[in-house]
């Protein structure tokens, strides 16, 4: 019985990302390497976050503070990764299949964002997914009809793609020398992350509000990310 939950949650959380990975990224070795590198950068960000968390004792029981540190560091590493990638861009373009395509930059930004997202999705959700194979559910405090793991699966799915489009928006801005898009990314990342605090809260339909916030941000950011490509 519970294997059904496990597969349901697994497909919900990782299914779409896996589809993109297998049908798009995996066909191109260069994209795979980019994805792995960005995934590594996300891991570095979370490593530093955990060092902060570990060293600053008062932080340990305050999710608001933990989220602030983690989001800030993730965005810092997004910038650092952009710096690294813009250095490597020439080389990347040389070995690319289509060196002069205007799609290279947004595609690379998308794939590295996907790397960020996949790694964050795996790190933050995999343990819950494993536990969802057991017979028990953990009822969601704000939505008694739902269980924490399924809400987590939906959140994970949204965050993977949020990271992808955030990367596209931020990188596009930086390529133009603008920091405003990155500022928007940063604010929406804070909003999405703090929104997830509604899920374990006792606010009625808190989990639905949290998912809605994530979804709206995803739509807005996707629009922001795709528009420059189409108008170019």
């Amino acid at each position, binding site marked *: *019985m519970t294997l059904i939950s496990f597969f349901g949650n697994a497909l919900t959380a990782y299914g779409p990302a896996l589809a993109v990975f297998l049908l798009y990224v995996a066909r191109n070795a260069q994209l795979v390497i980019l994805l792995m590198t960005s995934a590594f950068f996300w891991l570095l960000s979370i490593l530093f976050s955990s060092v902060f968390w570990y060293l600053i004792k008062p932080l340990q029981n305050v999710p608001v503070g933990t989220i602030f540190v983690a989001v800030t560091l993730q965005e810092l590493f997004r910038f650092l990764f952009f710096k690294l990638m813009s250095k490597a861009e020439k080389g990347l373009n040389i070995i690319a299949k289509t060196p002069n395509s205007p799609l290279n930059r947004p595609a690379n930004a998308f794939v590295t964002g996907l790397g960020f997202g996949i790694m964050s999705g795996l790190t933050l959700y995999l343990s*819950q997914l494993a536990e969802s194979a057991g017979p*028990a559910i953990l009822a969601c405090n704000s939505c008694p*009809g739902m*269980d924490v793991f399924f809400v987590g699966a939906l959140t994970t799915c949204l965050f993977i793609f949020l990271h992808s489009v955030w990367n596209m928006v931020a990188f596009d801005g930086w390529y133009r020398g603008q920091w405003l898009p990155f500022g928007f990314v940063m604010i929406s990342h804070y909003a999405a992350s703090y929104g997830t605090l509604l899920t374990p809260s006792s606010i009625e339909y808190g989990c639905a509000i949290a998912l809605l916030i994530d979804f709206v941000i995803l739509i807005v950011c996707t629009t922001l990310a795709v528009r420059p490509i189409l108008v170019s």
Partner: protein
Amino acid sequence: MHGRTSGRRPAKFRLLDGRSLLAALVLALTLVGTCSVAAQNAHLADAMYQGVPVSSCLRLLHASGTVGCQTKKGTTGILYQINNNNDLDAFIKDAPSRDYAIVMPYLVFTPSNVAKLRNSKKMAGIILVKDGFGYPDPATWSSDSTCPNCQFGLYSNQPPSSWHQWNPDGNSLSFQDFDFPIFGISQDGSNLRSITPLKEAVEANARGGYVSYPLYAVEFDAFMWAAGNSAVCLQRGWCDPIGGLSVWSTFSKVLDSNNTLNDNKPLIVVSAKIDSKSFISDFGIGSKLPTMAIGARSPKTGLVTALATADALSQYFKSPEAVPLAKHILFTFFDAETWGFAGSQRFVQDITRPLVCKERGETATPSCPLALANCTNPCFYDLDFTSIQFNNIESIIEFDSVGGIDVPNLPPNPTIFMHVDEVNPQTTALMNMFAGTTAAPGFNGSSPLNVNTVPAAGDGVNFRLPPSSAMAFLAKKNIPAVVFGDFRDRYSNRYYNSEFDDGSLWDADNVALMCALANKTARSVFASASGNTTVPLIVSANCTLVAELMNCFTRNLTCSLVAELYPQLIDTLEVLGPPLTDTAYSGTFNYDTNVMPFLINRIMTNLTATERTSPCIRDDQCPTDYACMSYSKLANGTSVGKCTQGFARFHWAYGTGIEKNYQKAVFEVVDPTKPSWTQSKFGTAATNGIRMRLFKVASTNYEALQLGIGCILTVLGIATTILSQRYFRKRFKME
């Protein structure tokens, strides 16, 4: 085919490169994932699963099969409460088709109801509730057979239809083979650790009509390895013999160089049994689980009366005018009697067989894990039993259930029945020693009694011996034997060998009766053993001791008697907390003793004490063959005793169908016709292998919804990826 394959080889190699890259990526991510999973799961599991302390029906094996329960791994069920037969019918008819853990009182737990539940295919397991849910005790409940152990008794060679039904209400559920788990919970004093969470959960389920999800469910975990029968199971190492330690003792000199037990004087055997059982087995003190098997009426009333008889006789032996009597008095307390008279049959087997000690050694061996054993093959701690001369046993006096609990006319005129195998001049003479009416004072304000001791046989009817230890002796030789019982033709104990035979039902009247019987027996035995009809007044039963023994054995081991004999047990219990009574289930045989045989051994050592020397705090401060007892508390709180030399011995008690193979150092079934009960080992060693976890589960619809959404999202992902790639290719005219 070949040409095509080889033609595509280069392309395939390129593809393989992509795949290995992919594989490496997946592997790396999985590794990262696994690490974080391990770290977080303990925390998550704590939030989701709540452990509930439970006892379980065990998987037991005999010579030709298995009985008891089996739990498949990962058995879970939604909690469902069934309070009566109407609830049961409603469950079978109306409950939606899922797996349920049925919470029910023993009253509903009958063979026909179990069969109904089993056939409903909706039951994952059963949780029996004794105390704590407010269920009334059943009027009668015994999971033993109608003639307990008769297939191993004195009349086993006669057709079963001729066996007298001593336990007519027995439903034999203990001998059924269940392919599902049956757990048991009970309130232990004021301890509600198992009751409260389970009660709240099942009540929450009932409030929602068992359809409003999430519902509470439990996981049963009590996997036991065994399959087949005792012989196969012992061979595979999946079983241990059921057994324990019997105790025997005597006032006659055995220890010094002029051992007098083999001086050809006649012997009078005074006997009682130690153990009983219950449908749900528990593991006694230290297990933190309520004690299910207490056996207050059977065997504890008999056991306590036998000990009180020994105490009355000891008053003479410790007086200055004591002289050796014309006959020896041998006290035997048999363990594992519930399992085919294992204790008595093995004892009789060992004292009737010449002992050939093949190996001696100071150190423990794989087949005899005892330091300082007197013989390591066969394995015996001491060989004192060899001085018991079986042929000199003149008579056997045994106490069955004698408390008079639930019998009519208590007070004022209780009747104790004397059961014999055959009514003949020898047994009549033996019965005449005890027959008649004795006036006894009340105890602690209870009214005085006139105890009638009468033969059970009468009006030309003799039901012969009820299942008893004396049978083992009689199977070898026709010795006059009398078994005392507070019943004539059926057990007065409505809860024979079950959970309900607990310490809650006896009172001062029962103490007065047992005390009167002990007094009568002691004085009659003394008269017979001394050959003198005038019995000294000091041979008199101590009613306070009877009450104290009953209290210690059936209600609370932290009693003054234990404080005097072995205060270390009280210290241990103060640390461990409840349960405070030990289980009457003998458990598995491992050359080690349970609390009950240990205490009986110490009580008898104390009663037969011939020397009390230097002060001590622990046994190991005393010389060999001395034990530290008669403790008293000093002002600073330490208990100090005296090194005491008395005489009490343990004797192995496991089925005579099982013997040790000393070459292989394993137990084997050597004779399937003799008792060969074994208990399966557990799949996991933690918490005795028994665990129950309480948690919430989702409905199948909800799970289907999860899977549906997962599939839809994945398909959406696939479609979006393909379509957008196609769109961008077209838009930017690539490839």
